[in-house]
């Protein structure tokens, strides 16, 4: 492991893994406890529109994704409230609209789209320094907002109606939370790509839920697990020459399944023992 650190790209990859772990560790906990995995899936897939736009305009797609994912987050949060459309229909529509827009822009862009695949499925080995900076700034933004609004987020994620009654601007804060998910998607794009983002938003948090009943501890643990999964996946993809995004996701999924299996075996003795 030490010698591969001599390669600059490995250092970048490790930095990217850590920055991604911070964002998805914190925000993934909200996604899991508030059960908004599908909403997050909608936001991340719709973000693909921003990547297409980036290609079309010749701007860093990661930057272009920010307004796009924020816009999809706000639309998902508002559409079902203001219209009679149910939330999951709204998600389905925005999810596919964003992707369609992305494809449209890419087909309008002359020439072919280099490393399009890496935006879809991630490639942690090719994260440029400029994107690391964006990831760092977004992490700082996410940590700051969660630090300042921790108590309010806890109230709205636990019981939104009561939070509203008690005088918390619950819907506005919910939109803020969706925007944080949108920013987390941006942080994760380089690591696992828009298609696989949901894995890192759910698995580390779901794993950490097994170990604690405390939201704060869950965040710390899930940052740890996300980093562990990403770095393990990164190492394996390097050593075995596998695509890094899917390796990270598969490592996470396998650990999750093993833990569940182990728990199952421990909690439920075999029938013959009863």
């Amino acid at each position, binding site marked *: 492991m030490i010698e591969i650190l001599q390669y600059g790209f490995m250092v970048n990859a490790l930095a990217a893994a850590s920055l991604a772990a911070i964002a998805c560790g914190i925000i993934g906990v909200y996604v899991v406890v508030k059960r908004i995995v599908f909403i997050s899936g909608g936001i991340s897939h719709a973000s693909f529109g921003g990547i297409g736009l980036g290609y079309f305009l010749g701007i860093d797609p990661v930057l272009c994704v920010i307004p796009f994912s924020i816009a999809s987050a706000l639309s998902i949060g508002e559409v079902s409230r203001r219209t009679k459309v149910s939330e999951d229909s709204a998600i389905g529509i925005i999810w596919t609209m964003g992707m369609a827009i992305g494809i449209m822009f890419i087909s309008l862009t002359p020439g072919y789209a280099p490393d399009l695949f890496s935006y879809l499925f991630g490639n942690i080995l090719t994260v440029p320094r400029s994107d690391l900076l964006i990831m760092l700034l977004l992490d700082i933004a996410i940590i700051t907002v969660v630090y300042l609004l921790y108590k309010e987020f*806890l109230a709205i994620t636990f019981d939104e*109606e009561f939070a509203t009654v008690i005088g918390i601007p619950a819907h506005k804060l919910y939109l803020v939370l969706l925007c944080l998910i949108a920013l987390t998607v941006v942080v994760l794009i380089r690591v696992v790509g828009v298609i696989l983002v949901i894995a890192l938003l759910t698995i580390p948090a779901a794993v950490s839920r097994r170990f604690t009943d405390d939201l704060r501890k869950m965040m710390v643990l899930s940052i740890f697990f996300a980093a562990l999964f990403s770095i393990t996946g990164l190492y394996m993809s390097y050593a075995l020459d596998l695509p890094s995004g899917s390796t990270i996701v598969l490592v996470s999924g396998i650990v999750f399944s093993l833990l569940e299996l182990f728990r199952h075996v421990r909690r439920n003795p075999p029938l013959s023992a009863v």
Partner: protein
Amino acid sequence: MNDEVINLRNVWVHYDSMPVLEDVSITVYQHDFLGIIGPNGGGKSTLLRVMLGLVKPSRGEVRVLGGDPEHNRRYIGYVPQYSLFDINFPINVRDVVLTGRAGHALFRRYTDQDKELAYNALKMVDMLPFENRQIGELSGGQRQRVFIARALAAGPKVLLLDEPAAGIDARMQTEFYELLEKLKEKMAIVIVSHDITAISIYVDTIACLNRKLFYHGSKEITPEDLMATYQCPVELIAHGVPHRVLREH
């Protein structure tokens, strides 16, 4: 009158053009202890939700402490009939009760005073020994007590209780109503209940709700009348004898 806490004037509520509340007018004053009774689907929960600004009336006016319910509902302590929350949510009892303070402590840390109010509220409902439990690791009745504590922690000027005693054991029920007796010195209380006996013992005034509200600011009906006639439409129960006129409604 400035000791009005909640004021509803000619409020109509429709769900998909079906009237659920028809022309409801009621004023709750500072030291009122009001019981609301009525059959299932009579609109009791809806009435409380109108007071909280969670349901917008299609006609009529709602004032809470002289202002908009949206603005002043943080002075209302609310115990819903059913709380919609995830039983596995990683939160303990103490933090649930603290969320009762969150409206007053908006965008700042909880102070020692917030924590003390939450502590006292937990103590009042006898749930201190459970303060570190995850919320899902409680029985239904214990959880209901926690939600009562959460409402009390807000230091409300009025308590709206939607069948708070459902699922609470006999001993705790007595204690609970006695607690309400004490609390009514400090706040107005509106309680929805099917337990007519308890209601008629403890509350000061009774309203009957079955789409229309019958309320005269008194407790004019005897428990026997109610028990005997509750199967009938509420207008007949509460008012059949003293207010025959109401049959025409």
